[in-house]
């Protein structure tokens, strides 16, 4: 087991290196560089000045030189300065986004898990009843709606029309920090985020539970006279949860990347928004670091999931 972990970690490091090269190359292929992003075309700056600014930033060096310079600095822990955020250091900038991202994704997923599992169980238990059909239709609608549309409509209805929730941001500007303020800003985006995930979890839970309920051991339990409630709660649920756990695991893995549409509509200071802004302004150091951090998280979560599987299910052999 330890050997397996070590091997996977080393491979993970290798993949991070490959990822950094891939992202670096992709970025340099993208037309326009940070200086181009800086200049407003209506207020013209001469290309001569732009060239001077470029050489200040080392952007006129050949690509491999630039990459190696970045790599050397990164190995020392120096991820450079953001080109767009007035010279802020990248690592604290990116690290500072992880918190809000996990907060948003965490609450959204928590709501989704609770609602998804609950409705999935109800749907499976009361199969084909009005409740089940209603829940299924709602779930399908949840999967079928584009997330940005639900975000826009939700923001309009709940913030502009009903004034139940603030229109964006994480905290009220200028006010002292309070948990209440944070929760008020968190509720709407988290709820809207949970819609799609809850719908998916519900469907998987329902399908999986239905399948488990047909197994022989469940039939045996029923035949033994175990009350239906315990049949479900104690015997069926645990086994039915396996595919749902897979789903949750893979969702958590990409959670660090944030939810760009929700963050964009609500101006939530998460990783997704940071990356979108960084790509728009070609802020190379930020993009490189954020991508690597997200990549590292995904690799780590995948590793943990695989190990958990192997630990739980003796039939599964790690490759």
């Amino acid at each position, binding site marked *: 087991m330890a050997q397996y972990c070590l091997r996977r970690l080393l*491979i993970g490091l290798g*993949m991070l290196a*490959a*990822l950094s090269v*891939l*992202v670096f190359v*992709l*970025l340099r*292929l*993208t*037309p326009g560089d940070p200086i181009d992003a800086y200049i407003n075309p209506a207020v013209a700056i001469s290309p001569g000045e732009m060239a001077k600014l470029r050489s200040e930033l080392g952007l006129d060096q050949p690509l491999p030189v630039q990459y190696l310079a970045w790599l050397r600095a990164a190995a020392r822990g120096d991820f450079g300065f953001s080109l767009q955020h007035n010279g802020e250091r990248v690592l604290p900038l990116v690290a500072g986004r992880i918190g809000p991202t996990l907060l948003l994704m965490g609450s959204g997923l928590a709501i989704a898990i609770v609602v998804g599992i609950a409705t999935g169980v109800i749907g499976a238990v009361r*199969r084909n009843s009005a409740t089940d059909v209603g829940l*299924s239709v709602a779930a*399908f*609608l949840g*999967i*079928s*709606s*584009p*997330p*940005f*549309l639900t975000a*826009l*409509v939700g923001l*309009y209805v709940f913030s*502009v029309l009903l004034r139940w929730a603030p229109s964006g941001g994480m905290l009220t500007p200028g006010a002292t920090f309070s948990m209440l303020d944070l929760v008020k800003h968190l509720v709407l985006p988290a709820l809207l985020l949970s819609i799609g995930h809850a719908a998916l979890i519900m*469907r998987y839970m329902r*399908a999986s539970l*239905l*399948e488990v309920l*047909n197994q022989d051991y469940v039939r045996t339990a029923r035949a033994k006279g175990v009350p239906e409630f315990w049949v479900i709660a104690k015997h069926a649920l645990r086994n039915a949860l396996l595919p749902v756990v897979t789903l949750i695991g893979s969702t958590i893995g*990409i959670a660090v*990347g*944030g939810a*760009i*549409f929700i963050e*964009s509509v609500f101006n939530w200071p998460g990783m*997704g928004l940071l*990356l*979108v802004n960084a*790509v*728009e302004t070609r802020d190379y150091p930020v*993009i490189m670091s*954020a*991508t690597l951090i*997200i*990549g590292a998280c*995904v*690799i780590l979560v*995948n590793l943990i999931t695989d190990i958990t599987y192997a630990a739980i299910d003796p039939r599964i052999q790690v*490759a």
Partner: protein
Amino acid sequence: MMSLALSRRNGPLARALQRFMMNGAALAGSAILISMLILVATYPAFVQHRPNDIDLLALNKGASATHWFGTDGVGRDVLARILQGGRVSLMVASISVAISTVIGFLVGALAAMGGRTADAVVMRFVDLAMTLPPVIFLLVLASIIGAGIPQTVLVIALLSWPVLARMVRARLLELRERDFVVASRGMGAGIGHLLWRHGLPNTTDILLVHITLQVANAILLEAGLSFLGLGVPPPEASWGNMLNAARSTVVLEQYAWQWLLPGAALVLTVLAINFIGDGLRDAFDPRSTLN
């Protein structure tokens, strides 16, 4: 011998089809999708406006006798644009899914059938593709190759194949140990034969379900890309870039038909495809008739 004669009429595919037909939601979904496809394919016959014809004298008008679904910000007919947009969105979705299915199947099959080292290398490659945050991959790729229909197709295709590769690999790995495959290989079957005669038929159910669900996903992805300003650029109509109008509160409030109707068309179509995909999944699962 009798079982052979019966099996032709009652083979697994036929049984699956039967189960599909008994699924109310799947039938409803098929009906909706087929109607949508017909409408989208034949709209020039009954809609007298063309989707890109501007009319500066009829801006932002509501539903009327001449414009059944109203007009947009430059006076273009919303109904015509919805149906043309349907063509574009469905075409982008289908082509990108076709490409990603081919890539996913080949990669997954290679990993499963190609031996230990091939498996390790290929799966690491798949992992790499999956670790790249979809956000940045989407944005960077779209920024490099620009907005436009072929570019959108490429971006969506490149995003969706890793998941299929994994599923195909899992199924084929399981298959590899089965007796008939071992026998085949024992008789000297090459990898092409194995994939075509044994691999493909035994992964049909995964592929079909994946394809239908991915088409739904691709439509949503295209909408999201267009929303971010990438994807299909105006004046070409697509459901995604029509929804982009909803960003402005004026449109959201006062000209609701400009985004509500394309949104409804998109949700309806994706819903129908999801019903079908779900129906297919149930149809291919032999245990579902036990309920």
